[in-house]
């Protein structure tokens, strides 16, 4: 019976095409929009995680409390022992990497050794020289090199492309890092600029330099010390996984603090954070989820509204058919059920087509991207200039479910008018029509 009715739907284009088109367009818009929003947002999360927050972060609490001041004296000692402890006390899918975040003046001398230009910079020290360093892959440094090469010897530096332009620094230029050592003394150390990097994030291109971790430990007198341990989980995992991993590490840390490494200061108190605890990311994730849900909700509501009206119009058009079916002895419930199934079928077909259309558009944005560098230039956001969509199963589900729901709900709401009418009323309209 149901296949018989479907045959009728497909033959009657006025019944099929409009709701099908509404669902297809609605689902396509939701899939494309959710894909784009996910891409932009997850791009920002990934960028923040890769650069300085990690998915997880182990940091000394006194350092974290004043990290805007970059207090190197509150860095965490016992690097090797900490590495062993982290490996032992966290799940094997977490990859831990040490970092030193620092701030200093960069002084560019002229031929006579006098200052030609100078500016404060934000620096990050990380493993740049190990063969197969995961950091180079994570920050895509090889791909981001505009000129030069990655550091291979001691005291070599990578500099943001825009920063180099502002300072008028060319490859091979020696610059002086003037900052504060671990124990509060003034340090000045020379570095050779061997590579210019375009991170693709305006805020970083204008202010950032990268040096090797061992060089930073030497420059700032931080032997066996780092400011951060950043932990990276597979990117497919949800935020809940970060929180769970953080809780697990924090509970183990309580035991470790009772028997700390001998190089720790008395008030050293390492804590584990997830990315959601840093840089207001948790609140941003919540806001993003609300915005995304609202967008999906609004589209679903609009689809229901349009399909409801289409259903009512189609229902009026079909009063004759309904009256006839009731006259032949089809029960009201069965009639409504078959209309619901019609809606379901149209919803499924429309959703499939919508997924293909929206998915293709999102895939194009994922592969090619959209350059919004001019828009982001002055925003200071840690976001890639080329924003990309992200096609995920979740994105498709967020399109398909409302598409099917809207189609069925729209049909059923419209059908309720039929349900309320008596057979005789429908029959009279059938005769009149």
């Amino acid at each position, binding site marked *: 019976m149901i296949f018989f009715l479907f*045959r009728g739907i497909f033959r009657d284009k006025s019944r099929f095409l409009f709701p099908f088109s509404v669902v297809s367009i609605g689902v396509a818009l939701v899939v494309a929009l959710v894909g784009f929003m996910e891409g932009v947002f997850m791009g920002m999360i990934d960028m923040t995680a890769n650069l300085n927050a990690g998915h997880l972060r182990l940091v000394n609490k006194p350092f974290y409390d004043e990290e805007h001041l970059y207090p190197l004296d509150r860095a965490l000692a016992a690097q090797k022992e900490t590495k062993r402890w982290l490996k032992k006390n966290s799940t094997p899918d977490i990859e831990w990497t040490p970092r030193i975040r620092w701030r200093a003046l960069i002084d560019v001398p002229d031929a006579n050794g006098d200052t030609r230009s100078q500016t404060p910079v934000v620096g990050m020290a990380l493993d740049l020289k190990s063969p197969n360093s995961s950091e180079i892959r994570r920050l895509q440094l090889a791909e981001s090199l505009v000129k030069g090469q990655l550091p291979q010897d001691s005291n070599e530096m990578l500099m943001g492309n825009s920063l180099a332009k502002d300072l008028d620094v060319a490859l091979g230029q020696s610059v002086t890092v003037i900052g504060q050592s671990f124990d509060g003394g003034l340090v000045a150390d020379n570095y050779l600029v061997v590579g210019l990097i375009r991170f693709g994030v305006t805020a970083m291109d204008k202010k950032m330099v990268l040096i090797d971790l061992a060089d930073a430990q030497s420059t700032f007198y931080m032997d066996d010390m780092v400011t951060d341990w950043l932990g990276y989980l597979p990117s497919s995992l949800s935020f809940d996984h970060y929180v769970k991993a953080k809780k697990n590490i924090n509970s183990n840390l309580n035991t470790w603090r009772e028997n700390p490494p001998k190089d720790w200061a008395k008030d050293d108190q390492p804590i584990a954070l997830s990315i959601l605890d840093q840089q207001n990311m948790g609140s941003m994730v919540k806001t993003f989820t609300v915005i995304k849900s609202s967008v999906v909700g609004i589209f679903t509501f609009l689809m229901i509204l349009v399909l409801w009206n289409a259903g009512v119009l189609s229902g009026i058009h079909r009063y004759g058919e309904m009256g006839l079916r009731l*006259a032949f002895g089809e029960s009201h419930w069965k009639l409504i059920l078959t209309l619901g199934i019609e809606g379901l079928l149209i919803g499924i077909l429309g959703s499939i087509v919508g997924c293909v259309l929206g998915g293709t558009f999102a895939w194009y944005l994922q592969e090619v991207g959209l350059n919004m560098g001019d828009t982001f230039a002055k925003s200071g956001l840690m976001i890639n200039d080329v924003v990309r969509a992200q096609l995920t199963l979740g994105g498709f589900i967020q399109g398909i479910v409302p598409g099917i729901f809207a189609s069925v709900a729209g049909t059923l709401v419209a059908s309720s008018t039929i349900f309320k009418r008596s057979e005789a009323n429908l029959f009279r309209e059938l005769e009149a029509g």
Partner: protein
Amino acid sequence: MNNNLISVKGVSKVFKVGEENFTALRDINLEIDSGSFMSFVGPSGSGKTTILNLIGGLDVPTAGNIFFKSTKLSAMNRNQMAQYRRKNIGFIFQTYNLFPVYSVYENILFPLLLSGSKEKDARERVMNIINKVGLSDQVKKRPSQLSGGQCQRVAIARALVKDPLLILADEPTANLDSKNSLQILELMSELNQQYKAAVVFSTHDEKVTRYVRREVGLEDGKIISDK
């Protein structure tokens, strides 16, 4: 043996039209036997269609009762009423009311599918009745490709295919020319003999009255003659 198929006892039907009450039927009493071939005759507004709707279980009387064999229709709930129509009643309409998107074959198949038959099981039965109404060369055509007379033949086949006990035909010849009307009446008369289903017309067409074996005259909702 009691041969009564339908008993109408003291039935009245009042419609509310705005603030006014319109009485369509007043205290109707009659019986319809199995296999009968009869018509309700009267001018527009005399209550012909209303009495067909009440007998067909599409509407309920304001007063009085209608019995199908010994079962009181007003005691049935909506589902039982739907089942009553599905099993026992065939409808034929003035405007044919065929499904425009389905072929001749599919239109006739529809009531059987509704009764729970499978398409492959129903095929032979449908083809038989199509042959009987003389449309075997029109099986795949849609209603829009048929003449009025052919459409009414499809409607007759559709009403008969589930082997009902009663066929209610509301002005079945009103949209047909004389020649087609006579052919349709001949056909219905033949099928009435063959299938033993009672056929009840509502009509003001004199040609119909020449064919039926019983004619009930209605005027202003009252029976004025029964011959």
